[in-house]
């Protein structure tokens, strides 16, 4: 039998696309190489009784329109806002973050009275950029090189959006998109630790340092989501990040879709210039009227499509697409709650993101190691203990800790990572935590260490890049992933893309998946059944 759509990869975007198409009445089959589903929004039990968030670890970007359309709450999805966060300083002090506005101001004032009062203006300015970009997330980028009516009207829409801003705001916006987060923060703040905390969102998942131009936009990418309307806030998916893809799978099955896990795609079948299905690694063939790849653009076109079927220029652009891995991950099962003596008894900060990098300079030095082809000797870590809030992931009193680590290069000085490299990397991270949390290592029951090698091999992310391609300005909007192919289509008819390599990029957002489904349905002249993107008023 022939499916209406075969979707490669049961990550969140593949499942979002599948759900929308299935609800529109299409016969869809999602093919997943791993025995489990989830891609990078995945929860596995690697230690008995402990649910991990093995890759992505917090939620904010996932579009609420998608949760609503696909009835994900009915299928078990719950997003829990979290409070807190802290940067532990080398001198034994710390900077805490608080949801309460006045508590946060007083905390900042411990480090700089001026910065404490400058923070509101900074937040306002960044929020303005968020308000500008949010309406673009659920729209297909226009192709500026065509004269198709839809592209022209989308370009005009973009122009109108710019036109709504004052000249000064346009200048600010363009500056922000192109400058480094370090320079941007210097315009507001003087305290090294405050800047060190705020710079974090600009480097996560990116092979840029905080002093690299373009890093400020990456910060925006992390601020433009929301938790129930609280823009910029982040939360935990109750039951781990895998509960997002679990809810999507349930929604898909309820709509009559199908998931085949355990055998990956070997080759996308192309015949007469059209995609007609996939061959699995076990030789099975799944026929489809269209094939939609949730894999990144490099993996899709350089590994699973015969090069002869593709225009040379396209292949060249795909090869040049920047997808450099920059991060690793430690997932730790803990026998008891870690203690950070710097924090006062009862401080809520431990329920949020914990960092050990107390200045932008240290972050940049960690990036210097990456440039030299080494993992950072003094890495930046974004550590979270979701079980401080989520009672479902571990037995009572036990904890799961997720440590996102930068920087880790895709190759060590040009050669592949070895197990010894991986273990040394893991040890470096554990040592860093233990410096601020005595006895930490004694609480450890199990550690999963993932370098770019594991991320590529297990999750399928080329070079271990968590965004399926860097979020630099040259790779955004109608240039993502390749100019002329930003509308979820490819040079091969009926071969589509729906992953984070496409607009609007990475993170557990679901927007690429929804936009791709919208394009497929539009081409079929089929009603989409999608709710309008929520208005920004």
């Amino acid at each position, binding site marked *: 039998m022939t499916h209406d759509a075969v979707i490669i990869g049961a990550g969140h975007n593949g499942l979002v696309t599948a759900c929308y198409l299935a609800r529109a009445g299409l016969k869809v089959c999602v093919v997943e190489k791993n025995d489990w589903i989830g891609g990078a929004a995945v929860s596995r039990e690697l230690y008995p009784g402990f649910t991990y968030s093995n890759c992505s670890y917090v939620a904010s970007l996932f579009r609420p329109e998608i949760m609503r359309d696909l009835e994900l709450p009915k299928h078990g999805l719950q997003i829990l806002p979290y409070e807190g966060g802290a940067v532990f300083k080398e001198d034994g002090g710390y900077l*805490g973050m*608080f949801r*309460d*506005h*006045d*508590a946060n*101001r*007083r*905390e900042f*004032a*411990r*480090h*700089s*009275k*001026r*910065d*404490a*009062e*400058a923070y*509101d*203006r900074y937040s*306002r300015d960044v*929020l*303005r950029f968020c*308000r500008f970009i949010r309406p673009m997330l659920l729209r297909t980028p226009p192709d500026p090189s065509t004269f198709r009516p839809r592209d022209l009207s989308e370009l005009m829409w973009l122009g109108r959006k710019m036109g*709504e*801003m*004052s000249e*000064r*705001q346009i200048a600010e916006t363009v500056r922000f998109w192109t400058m480094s987060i370090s320079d941007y923060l210097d315009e*507001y703040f*003087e*305290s090294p630790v405050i800047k060190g905390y705020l710079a974090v969102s600009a480097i996560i998942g990116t092979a840029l340092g905080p002093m690299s131009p373009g890093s400020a936009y990456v910060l925006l990418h992390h601020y433009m989501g929301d938790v129930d309307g609280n823009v910029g806030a982040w939360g935990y998916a109750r039951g781990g990040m895998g509960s997002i893809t679990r809810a999507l799978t349930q929604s898909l099955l309820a709509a009559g879709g199908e998931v085949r896990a355990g055998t990956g795609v070997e080759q996308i079948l192309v015949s007469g210039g059209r995609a007609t299905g996939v061959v699995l690694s076990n030789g099975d063939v799944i026929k489809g009227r269209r094939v939609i790849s949730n894999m990144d653009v490099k993996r899709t076109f350089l590994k699973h499509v015969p090069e002869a079927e593709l225009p040379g220029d396209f292949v060249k652009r795909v090869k040049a697409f920047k997808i450099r891995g920059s991060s690793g991950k430690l997932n730790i099962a803990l026998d008891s709650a870690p203690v950070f003596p710097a924090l*006062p*008894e*009862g*401080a*809520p900060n431990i329920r949020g993101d914990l960092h050990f990098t107390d200045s932008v300079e240290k972050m940049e030095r960690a990036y210097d190691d990456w440039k030299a082809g080494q993992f950072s000797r003094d890495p930046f870590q974004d550590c979270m203990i979701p079980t401080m809030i989520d009672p479902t992931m571990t037995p009572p009193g036990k904890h799961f800790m997720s440590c996102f680590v930068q920087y880790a290069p895709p190759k060590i000085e040009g050669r592949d990572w070895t197990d010894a490299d991986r273990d040394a990397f893991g040890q470096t991270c554990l040592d860093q935590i233990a410096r601020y949390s005595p006895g930490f290592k004694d609480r450890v029951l199990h550690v999963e260490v993932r370098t770019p090698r594991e991320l590529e091999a297990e999750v399928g992310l080329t070079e271990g890049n968590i965004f399926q391609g860097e979020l630099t300005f040259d790779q955004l909007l109608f240039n993502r992933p390749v100019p002329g192919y930003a509308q979820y289509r490819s040079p091969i008819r009926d071969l589509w893309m729906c992953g984070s390599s496409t607009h609007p990029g990475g993170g557990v957002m679901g927007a690429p998946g929804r936009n791709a489904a919208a394009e497929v349905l539009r081409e079929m002249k089929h009603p989409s059944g999608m709710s309008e993107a929520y208005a920004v008023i």
Partner: protein
Amino acid sequence: MIATSKTPLDHFRTPLLQTPFHARTAPANRLNHWGPWAGYMTALCYGDSDMEYTAIRNGASVYDLCPMVKYAVRGREAAAYLNRLTIRNAAKLSVGGVHYTVWCDDAGKILDDGTLFRHAEDHYVICCQERHLGWLLDSAEGFEVTVEEITEDIAALSLQGPCSATVLGAAGFDVSALKPFRMARFPFEGGEITVSRTGFTGDLGYELWMAPDQALPFWDHLFAAGAPWNIRPIGTDALNLARIEAGFIITNMDFIPADQALREDRPRSPLEMGLDWMIDWEKGHFTGRRALLAEREKGSDWALIGLEVPGNISAEGSILYYGKKVEAGFITAAAWSPSVKKSIALAQVPARHRGGHDLWVEIYALRELQYVKLMLPVTVVERPFFNPARKRATPPGRV
């Protein structure tokens, strides 16, 4: 050198601070009706807002002013700095004087309003609603001044009402010669308190400034002296009614500070808020001057107006219409005024509607769970709505 505060690490346990008067205001607050104001617990009502309001207009009322944000500006070029920062002429303010003022961003939109106190040639204090240390320090580039945030270093009460001068006299502070917007210092228990003839009620009244450790003894002394005039603490609800009658505006209620506005069309200029009378165009450059000059040339987009509304129902939160159909601005503050016996309101309207021709207000009055919808014609009137002669009389009338 980075200036830091000595806040204790466990400050998060009490995100709302208590003012130095808390040991007195807390037992007086029979309703335990508190609200947050600038990071402090502040009494919204102690027991009965009507009685508290009546104390403002009949006797002597005391409002805890401590949460007001305060900055000290010191240095040889303090006056020049403040002239550059604010729209009014701070150099013309004589030592011992106070004036109401406003500062703007480069686009000529209001960042905040506040009162400026000149304690010495080279020493001013700014009192305002919002926090601006970054802006104030950036603006100080090139001036020989220091700017310091001193909110927690000063405790303050507002004593307002027709008996306020009499009460101060009974307390041993003779303010009979003190003119409006002037300050005087008085010894108190080995220290000193500063009395300014200022306030936010549009009535006779004084603001009393002291060191935090003087707060409780001073409170006790004042309340003992004021007992014959039924001195009573008042909450924000009563004060808000009095300030509407006085026609005063409040930051973040009647306008949004330019540096907080997310939407670019929300900030307002001094011209749009009816504050053009305080701009000194001749004093030299000040921040926002170029934009304000341009606005004066081409006209403003908005206007703040005072309104009288027929009937006795408050128009709070209502939308205005031109010819009952086209939206034409909105009410920012409204109340039934006990002192003028009218329904009064402050409103922002597109400038072309400032005259109020064919202007209507649509009121949704909640009565027993149901809204009664009213469409009423409004009349533009001068502010203040309530303007008693006793506010200005020097010496003030003795009661």
